[in-house]
């Protein structure tokens, strides 16, 4: 059962991963990438990591849906109605990739992997939580800070309007001057 699931998901993941760069239509490419990443989530579930697998599915779905919008905003030919290539140094890239894949596979097959130590805990999710809140607290804090910094950096990079644009030079405007009025009535 799980062997069949592994093979189906693995083949689908790699195939849709390849299709990402073969589709002309941006929408298809995005959702092909989503399929590949959903399959990765599925593989995690096959491995017994239910929580992380489902979280991957959740995150990737939302991420790809949002990416689709950016795609339409910034791409020149999102619907792929006019076939065009937007590629550079294909040959070099193909060589690099084929080379790295071969060496990775050789490495994977030759390395004497250590034997399995210990047993999986009954509840890996609990294990993960305890670890993140215990020995791995530093990782968790770093991730938290990184995410926070990302939020700030993203807003700074993406917007061009600051509070002086919204509330006037002396920041005294009663109502912000926004292109669209918001819902809280400030």
């Amino acid at each position, binding site marked *: 059962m799980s062997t069949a699931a592994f093979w189906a998901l693995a083949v689908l993941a790699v195939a849709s991963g390849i299709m990402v760069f073969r589709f002309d239509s941006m929408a298809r490419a995005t959702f092909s990438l989503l399929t590949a990443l959903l399959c990765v989530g599925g593989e995690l579930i096959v*491995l017994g990591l239910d929580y992380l697998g489902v979280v991957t599915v959740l995150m990737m779905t939302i991420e790809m849906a949002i*990416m689709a919008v950016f795609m339409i905003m*910034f791409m020149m030919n999102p619907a792929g109605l006019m076939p065009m290539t*937007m590629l550079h140094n294909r040959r070099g890239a193909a060589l*690099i990739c084929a080379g790295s894949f071969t060496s990775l596979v050789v490495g*994977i097959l030759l390395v004497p*992997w250590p034997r399995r130590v*210990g047993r999986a805990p009954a509840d890996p999710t609990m294990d993960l939580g305890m*670890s993140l809140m215990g020995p791995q607290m530093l990782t968790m804090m770093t*991730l938290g800070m990184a995410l926070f910094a990302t939020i700030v950096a993203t807003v700074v990079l993406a917007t061009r309007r600051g509070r002086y644009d919204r509330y006037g030079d002396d920041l005294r405007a009663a109502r912000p001057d926004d292109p669209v009025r918001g819902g809280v009535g400030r």
Partner: protein
Amino acid sequence: MNLELFLITAAALFCVGLYGALTQQSIVMLMMGLELMLGGVILAAGAAWHHIAPAAADGQVLIVVAITAMAVEMAIGFAVVTALFRSREVDTTDMAAELRE
């Protein structure tokens, strides 16, 4: 279904993503390549956890880190594209490289 098979799948995903990241001109497509590479990393980490050290949570923590990296990469990537696009109307790597000149 052993460790090697999982790792080879992960390597295939990683290399497909690498190919995309190297060849695509559009920044958005380049980010899709990066996502695929990180997807490979996640899979490899999960396989390593299951087949090598299931008792320790380190493999799981690595997956959490990779997922966070994906989110951060995406958010920053789109913010940079938006900023570039706003100032220069640039949306491909080649065009961004020309800006230096």
